């Protein structure tokens, strides 16, 4: 990516477009609970992912960065793997949950 030749107006437009996009998404995060109450958590996280993607691609100029993009994906893969194993496999299948003090302690609202 050549840094000398840049089209100021063009890039500026992109910035504003993305800004608007992000603002819209933010408003959606606020109205979502009123319109779609089935799974707040999932929908919130989904929106967050889209926002993150916009920021990465346009604000952080990840677009067209092959090498760096691959590195980012590798890191994200690792994190998601940690989640899958620990949150997805280990915790829900822990067979002694009922005997566990921290899970079913006297004053945890169940």
């Amino acid at each position, binding site marked *: 990516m050549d840094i000398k030749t840049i089209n100021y107006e063009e890039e500026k437009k992109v910035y504003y477009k993305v800004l608007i996009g992000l603002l819209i998404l933010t408003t959606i995060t606020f109205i979502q609970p009123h319109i779609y109450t089935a799974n707040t958590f999932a929908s919130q996280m989904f929106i967050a992912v889209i926002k993150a993607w916009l920021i990465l691609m346009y604000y952080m100029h990840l677009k067209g960065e092959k090498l760096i993009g691959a590195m980012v994906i*590798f890191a994200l893969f690792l994190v998601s793997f940690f989640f899958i*194993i620990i949150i997805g496999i280990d915790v829900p299948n*822990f067979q002694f949950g009922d005997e566990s*003090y921290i899970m079913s302690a006297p004053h945890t609202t169940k």
Partner: protein
Amino acid sequence: MSKTYFDETHCAFGHPKSTFMQWMLTIDHKRIGLMYAAVMFTFFFVAVATAFVMRLELLAPGQQFIDGDTFNQAFTLHGVIMIFLFIIPGIPAIFGNIVMPIMIGAKDVSFPRLNWFTFWLYIVGALVALSSLVSFNDVDGEMIFNFADTGWTFYAPYSLNTGTNVITTLVAAFILGMASILTGLNFLVTIHRLRAPGMGFFKMPLFVWGIYATGWIQLLATPVVGITLVLAILEKQFGIGIFDPAKGGDPVLFQHLFWIYSHPAVYLMILPAFGIMSEIIPVFSRKEIFGYRTIALSSASIAGIGYLVWGHHLFTSGMADIAKTVFSFLTFFVAIPTGIKFYDWVATMYQGKIVLSTPMIWALGTIITFAIGGLTGITITMVGLDIHLQDTYYSVAHFHYAILGGVVFLMFAGMHYWFPLITGKMYNEKKAKIAFYMNFVGINLLWFPMFIAGYLGMPRRYFDYLPEFEIYHQISFAGAVVMVSGLVYMFWVLFQGWRNGEPSGTNPWNATTLEWHLPSSPPPLENHSKVPYVDFEPYKYENGEPVVKFDYETMKRID
């Protein structure tokens, strides 16, 4: 000879006159590497001494020389120094700094100033760790030996409750972690950006591959333990309750986060060591390495798989059975690339003109010791067996065979291999070999009995034991004596070589990689007189002679 440094004293800042200040502020990768070496081996011997005291204490059941609490602090000190100060930064910081840039024909690492900063960050971390050794009791301000007694793993909740200086130690570990991250970052960028023209990834020497894989582990795994330690510190300070069951926290989560880093950390230790092995074997077999790509890629895949196996440290800590199975299964996979490497090395030696110089016999010895360490590792990968052997001397022996008999031995192999490059002198081969045999006998005498003791149920980290185990401890002690003598003897031989050995010339081993094609040895500032164009594979030999030859002034090929 175009010097590209903007400042001929090549310091991080200023133009100091005194040589001492020039060393303190140097951004020259070779000097920084040497300073790392000096500091690390000092710490290494401190830790060795601690371990020896423990062996002395365990010579007989009951209390001999030190009491239980001191013993706990002793093994913690041994662990913290060996892991955080010596073996994790060890090979990358020393040889990665000294030879890696030369190997890829670079003039320095990508961020020399960052490199300098990293070194001093490391020193700060070391000092903080030392400061946590003692504390002054508030009653009468007298100094008491109050190092953390948690073991180097700082397991919660004990680490949150004990009165010893855990926080300081955690801070030290955190700072050292940052140093390690920055080193890895620096090397990754260096390897990506500063390879000599023409040197593709598959023309790099294998040590560079090792460093590259290591860099990724340092970069992506260390932050996890970093944040874990931060959380533990906050926990101790503000009682958040993240790891403290009394407040609803789950200690197993601590173990998860801790091992997410600390398991890859052992691959972080071994990968550059494997790199050294892959340098030494072809050079002293006078033969092109067998299966270059498989070795290179197996380094990468070990690094990759290494991230996915941390759970095998938690088999007895309360994990879901499915998780245990998954982790056990994944862990077996690590054996595959490792096995590939070993077969490649052996195949390289097959029909080669093997020269049994000191670096080579260190490497060969390692093939034996590390094989023992690795295979015993596979046995405790099996959940059922691990339930029996966890936290016994068996795992202690496994770990030391793998790390001392693998990483440290190869580090010493590297020391003997690159010694002429760094000092320009040659040590006394005969004495160096004697030193090796002392160490080799020592390590087996010291740790093999532990396999048996551990299998019979001798738990680790105990300062007293039942008389049944006496004999094993006594053999181990004998081994310890031999080993320590061997270590000291080895360093003495090298020291002698450095003081008054004969000049070695630039390429005493008939090696092929770029670090042996320097105009002078020790290498001049900014290494090669001119950056070569690399259009050849490393380790090219024809009937026992290196193929590629250079004119060291113009760095043009003359073969």
